[in-house]
């Protein structure tokens, strides 16, 4: 009896464990990009409706995070970076994570439909399905292109934000989607180049493991080259402006030069300086997305308060 009680006590989760289950760092990126998508749209939204919609989108993202952690608990336990997550650490039971994920998915989609519109809710439902089922269950353990296709799930939030405001999807929303979609592979592969060992141990087919690091470097450059016209093209649409175009020029030059540097190196050179160029490219990629979406927001503010500037 005593043994049973001790086990029960150790498994009991604190509030922070449930928050961790919803992947708050991913959620913050989702909130930011969805908010920008909503605010740059040419249709004004009541602040309470906007706040509610962003909260429901964030809850939906959290729900898909919980479902992902439920499904991936076995590989999370093997990888150093994820071994302290609530399920592998034994603080949240797998069934509990599944229940939370399913319940929050249903709640967030239903409430977004009521707060905004059916299209936004449908896109949120598709995003949760894409991340939890298509990416986590099908692609992640099956193909080294997992990051590429799975990146679509992370690219949807600004489209959902745009749909909340306009009730539709247009070229601006598609280009915001494409920006995140094309950015994701070089971002993750730069990380995979210097986080060696972790994915090998878990048996996840990352490009670095299945096709080697030379091929990964080629892929990083190819995707970065394809990313540049998408980023600059977004600046020529109705939501672009001087701030965005200036930011896009600077950030794409930095990202492209970083990708070329990483492409020209081999493993010997990378190991010699502790993967400095790869780490720098990863850091630039973090600023890259944040800068682009902040610039879109800045131009929207300028358009609203300084008429005739653009």
């Amino acid at each position, binding site marked *: 009896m005593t043994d049973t009680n001790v086990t029960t*006590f150790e498994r009991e989760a604190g*509030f922070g464990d*449930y928050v961790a289950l919803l992947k708050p760092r991913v959620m913050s990126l989702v909130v930011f990009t969805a908010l920008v998508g909503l605010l740059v749209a040419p249709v004004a939204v*009541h602040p*309470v409706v906007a706040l509610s919609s962003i*909260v429901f989108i964030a809850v939906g993202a959290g729900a898909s995070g919980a479902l992902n952690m439920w499904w991936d608990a076995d590989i999370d336990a093997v990888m150093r970076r994820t071994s302290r997550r609530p399920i592998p650490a034994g603080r949240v039971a797998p069934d509990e994570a599944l229940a939370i994920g399913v319940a929050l998915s249903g709640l967030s989609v239903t409430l977004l439909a009521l707060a905004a519109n059916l299209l936004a809710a449908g896109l949120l439902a598709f995003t949760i399905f894409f991340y939890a089922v298509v990416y986590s269950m099908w692609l992640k353990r099956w193909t080294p292109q997992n990051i590429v296709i799975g990146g679509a799930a992370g690219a949807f939030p600004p489209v959902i934000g745009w749909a909340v405001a306009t009730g539709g999807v247009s070229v601006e929303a598609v280009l915001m989607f494409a920006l995140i979609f094309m950015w994701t592979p070089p971002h993750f592969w730069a990380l995979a180049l210097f986080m060696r060992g972790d994915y090998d141990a878990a048996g996840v087919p990352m490009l670095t493991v299945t096709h080697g690091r030379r091929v990964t470097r080629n892929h990083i450059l190819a995707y970065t080259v394809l990313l540049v016209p998408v980023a600059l093209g977004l600046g020529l649409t109705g939501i672009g402006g001087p701030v965005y175009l200036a930011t896009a020029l600077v950030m794409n030059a930095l990202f492209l030069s970083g990708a070329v540097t990483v492409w020209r190196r081999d493993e010997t050179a990378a190991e010699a300086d502790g993967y400095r160029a790869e780490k720098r490219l990863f850091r630039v990629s973090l600023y890259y997305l944040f800068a682009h979406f902040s610039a879109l927001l800045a131009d929207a503010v300028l358009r609203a308060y300084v008429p005739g500037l653009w």
Partner: protein
Amino acid sequence: MAIKAEHEIHRRRLSRNVGVGLVLAAFVVLMFGLSVVKIKSLGATQGFDHVVRPEMIETAQ
């Protein structure tokens, strides 16, 4: 005899209960605010069933 022993598990449960309580309270406030905005955006409605009544708009004009 009252049980007073404080175990680490009690602190964890308290944190969880307070956290869930605050989240639910915030959810209630959000839903109330959203309801007010949605109902007001309907225009001329009557309070007992919140249904739009065009005849009220004509009367107002």
